[in-house]
């Protein structure tokens, strides 16, 4: 019998970034007992790194904005593979969710008349992102954290969940360990909300921290839930590229929103060379018009640097591949040039982009008020995730909910910047509410103690192999290298087949991994236990990407470089088959309600 501490909750939330905190707050407001577990300390989750802002059609800066415009922008950005119901709810509810944060103490930047200021961002027709300089995520997570700690929620910091437990079809609990002492924890719960974020650590170059190993994706998959849109990984166009140790760290889109331009080594503004047909009407004809747009001219159209992230990332790749890149394999992002336009440009840059200024100064010895930055694509966000009901966020497993990055649907083939912070508020709230309702309507299930014991043995197995087993870091690094090279921004069939072979071999090696030391705060052990999750999501990404023989959004196939309308009618769904293998299915997209279709027509 394994030795473990047991906790009973009505609702267990796994993950304490924005979505998890928001879900926990809402569930607690629903009058049920709530436990919240997170792998790091509270307030350190990836939401803290979000820079640009939270998208909501408040209409404070441009009163032409409303939910209909936000809805159609989101659908266009997602290439119409989005769950349109989620896109509708998101656009309608984001403003209330943002205002609510203000009631909990958030302090956004202000308009001259004292309301919440909004800024331009890629793919958003009007200035829509409520923000705090370039540290919006910190403001949001701190607000949710400082509000959340007074709502009677039990917070378990530095606890990792290794498996969900079921009772029949429904979810009944979760099993894991605390990182500090390595002691086992059994959580029994009537409903569980996954809010574990993304999968960035499956790739070598990423803006994501160690935590983002696809835990929620893998937990849901292993519990029988369906994953969707796994081929759509967002490579953010602007990550740092030099020095090597900072490669991948995010450079906010806000730099371009404030007038920053992308240049190749010849000094050419290459983004003007390739503007997709469906954005041509909305894009500036000249650099001058683009500049006016960034300065708030309502009659100007956006500069091509603010096209969607998938497109900008591919244009950068093209420049690099064709030999026009910067010295360290990126391109130049220049905000310093605005001194030609503004008298106090350096001051403006430091005020609008303080953490970017700080980041480049301290980590790269570059003063962005005088010198262009070198940037290149970095793995940033997972559009794909747990397939959920748009209204309730419940997965196909009863009692198992998902919200935020771990859930699929809102963003379709490509996410617009700013839509993730609003996503986690809107759907964190919904998941929390419906999880609480589910918990009230259903009796507690009973996890199988035998299963718990089996998991306890499996979790400790790497210690038994000890130094005789292979170290976990070699396997992790090899997976990251190969995924980057074989299933990265530009994909072809042959390479992805190779990736599946690689994943198969690494899965065998991961099963024989060994760790040394003891159970107390042992990162080698933690890394070993994260490996199966990374391998599961990597396989799902590769298989879904093989299945989609076209290029759309974040998914680009060199062997099928065009968008194929036939592929615009379904999502690719992945689930665990009866034989334990991974099975794929094409799920037709339900027909959109006529009034929503009309909104899209009107906004074209």
């Amino acid at each position, binding site marked *: 019998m394994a030795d473990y501490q047991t906790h009973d909750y009505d609702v267990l939330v796994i993950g304490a970034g924005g979505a998890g905190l928001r879900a926990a707050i809402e569930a607690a407001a629903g009058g049920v007992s709530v436990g919240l577990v997170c792998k790091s300390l509270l307030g350190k989750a990836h939401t803290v790194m979000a820079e640009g802002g939270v998208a909501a059609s408040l209409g404070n800066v441009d009163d032409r904005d409303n939910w209909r415009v936000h809805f159609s922008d989101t659908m266009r950005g997602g290439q119409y593979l989005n769950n349109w119901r989620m896109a509708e709810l998101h656009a309608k509810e984001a403003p209330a969710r943002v*205002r609510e944060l203000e009631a909990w*103490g958030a302090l956004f930047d*202000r308009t001259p008349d*004292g309301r919440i200021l909004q800024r331009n961002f890629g793919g958003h027709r009007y200035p829509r992102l409520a923000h705090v300089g370039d*540290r919006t995520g910190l403001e949001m997570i701190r607000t949710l954290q400082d509000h959340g700690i007074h709502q009677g929620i039990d917070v378990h910091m530095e606890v990792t969940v290794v498996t969900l437990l079921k009772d029949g079809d429904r979810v009944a609990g979760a099993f894991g360990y605390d990182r500090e002492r390595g002691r086992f924890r059994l959580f029994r719960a009537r409903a569980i909300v996954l809010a574990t974020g993304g999968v960035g650590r499956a790739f070598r170059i990423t803006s994501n921290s160690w935590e983002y190993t696809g835990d929620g994706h893998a937990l849901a998959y292993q519990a029988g839930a369906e994953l969707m849109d796994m081929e759509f990984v967002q490579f953010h166009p602007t990550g740092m590229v030099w020095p090597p140790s900072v490669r991948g760290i995010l450079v906010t889109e806000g730099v371009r929103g404030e007038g920053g331009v992308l240049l190749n080594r010849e000094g050419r503004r290459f983004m003007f060379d390739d503007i997709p047909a469906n954005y041509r009407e909305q894009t500036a004809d000249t650099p001058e018009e683009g500049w006016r747009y960034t300065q708030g001219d309502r009659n100007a159209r956006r500069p091509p640097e603010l096209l969607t992230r998938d497109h900008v990332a591919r244009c950068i790749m093209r420049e690099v591949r064709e030999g026009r890149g910067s010295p360290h394999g990126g391109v130049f992002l220049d905000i310093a040039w605005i001194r030609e336009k503004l008298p106090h440009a350096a001051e403006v840059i430091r005020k609008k982009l303080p953490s970017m200024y*700080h*980041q480049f100064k301290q980590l790269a010895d570059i003063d962005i008020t005088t010198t262009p930055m070198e940037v290149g694509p970095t793995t940033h966000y997972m559009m794909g995730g747990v397939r959920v009901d748009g209204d309730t966020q419940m997965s196909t497993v009863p009692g198992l909910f998902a919200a935020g990055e771990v859930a699929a649907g809102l963003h379709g083939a490509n996410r617009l910047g700013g839509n993730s912070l609003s996503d986690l508020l809107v759907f964190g709230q919904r998941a929390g509410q419906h999880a609480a309702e589910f918990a009230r309507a259903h009796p507690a299930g009973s996890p199988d103690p035998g299963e718990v014991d089996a998991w306890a043995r499996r979790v400790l197995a790497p210690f038994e192999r000890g130094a005789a087993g292979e170290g976990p870091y070699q396997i992790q690094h090899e997976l990251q290298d190969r995924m980057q090279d074989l299933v990265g921004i530009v994909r072809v069939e042959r390479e992805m087949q190779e990736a599946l072979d690689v994943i198969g071999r690494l899965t065998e090696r991961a099963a024989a991994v060994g*760790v040394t030391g003891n159970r107390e*705060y*042992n990162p080698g052990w933690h890394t070993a236990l994260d490996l199966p999750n990374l391998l599961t999501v990597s396989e799902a990404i590769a298989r879904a990407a093989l299945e989609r023989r076209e290029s759309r959004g974040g998914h680009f196939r060199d062997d099928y470089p065009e968008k194929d309308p036939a592929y615009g009618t379904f999502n690719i769904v992945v689930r665990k088959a009866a034989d334990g293998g991974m099975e794929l299915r094409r799920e037709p997209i339900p027909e959109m309600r006529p009034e929503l279709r009309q909104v899209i027509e009107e906004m074209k």
Partner: protein
Amino acid sequence: MTQATFRVWRGDAAGGKLVDYATEVSEGMVVLDAVHHIQSEQANDLAVRWNCKAGKCGSCSAEINGKPRLMCMTRLSELDLTEPVTVEPMRTFPPVRDLVTDVSWNFRVKKGIRKFKPRAPDAADGTWRMSQPDVDRVQEFRKCIECFLCQDVCHVLRDHHLHDEFIGPRSLVYVAALEMHPLDTEDRVPELRQANGIGYCNITKCCTAVCPEGIRITDNAIIPLKERVVDQFFDPVGRLVKIFSRRHTEAGSGA
């Protein structure tokens, strides 16, 4: 490629020692990179907290060559690599393992501080109006990434261990952010004097010196809070003026 030696504290609550690790260093590396190299190549079980690697989350606090700093923002190029670089856990908090300390006290203290209580909304739609300068003043405090380096360096906590009587600079910055929030209506001044022990701070400004966010903790947060305590508790004339002016306002608004 050149080599450098890192002298890392290895141990737990029962005790520990400094262990030397030689590792290769390259252009642009920070201390956290070196710790990660050592972890993946020589000591898989070397315990260290980190998340963002960009100075935004405040997880990788440590003492580098004796100075409280973020490992992710300390570049090797600013250190003398001809000597071993010492990397130790924060000394003010109980050790868990290696570079990881038990910082849970900070979270408990925060929970004990009265939460944000906004005034009634300014507009019919439930929203407020605030000016940018009013917001800016508080945003300085809200930049705090909760790395707890200020707590680590504060002699009241570090040398005198008065964790039960003094909430430390980070928590005072939190109180300042609430007290100076344009919408907040709560009064935390009596607690500042009693439970929060603000009097223990003798404004040596060590906290300000180590803040990676450049928050002027002593000048902009702690001293103004001390002034509020003095105004409310030790200034009889000011107190009388306040009572009368409050009565006056109340009478005025009642009319």
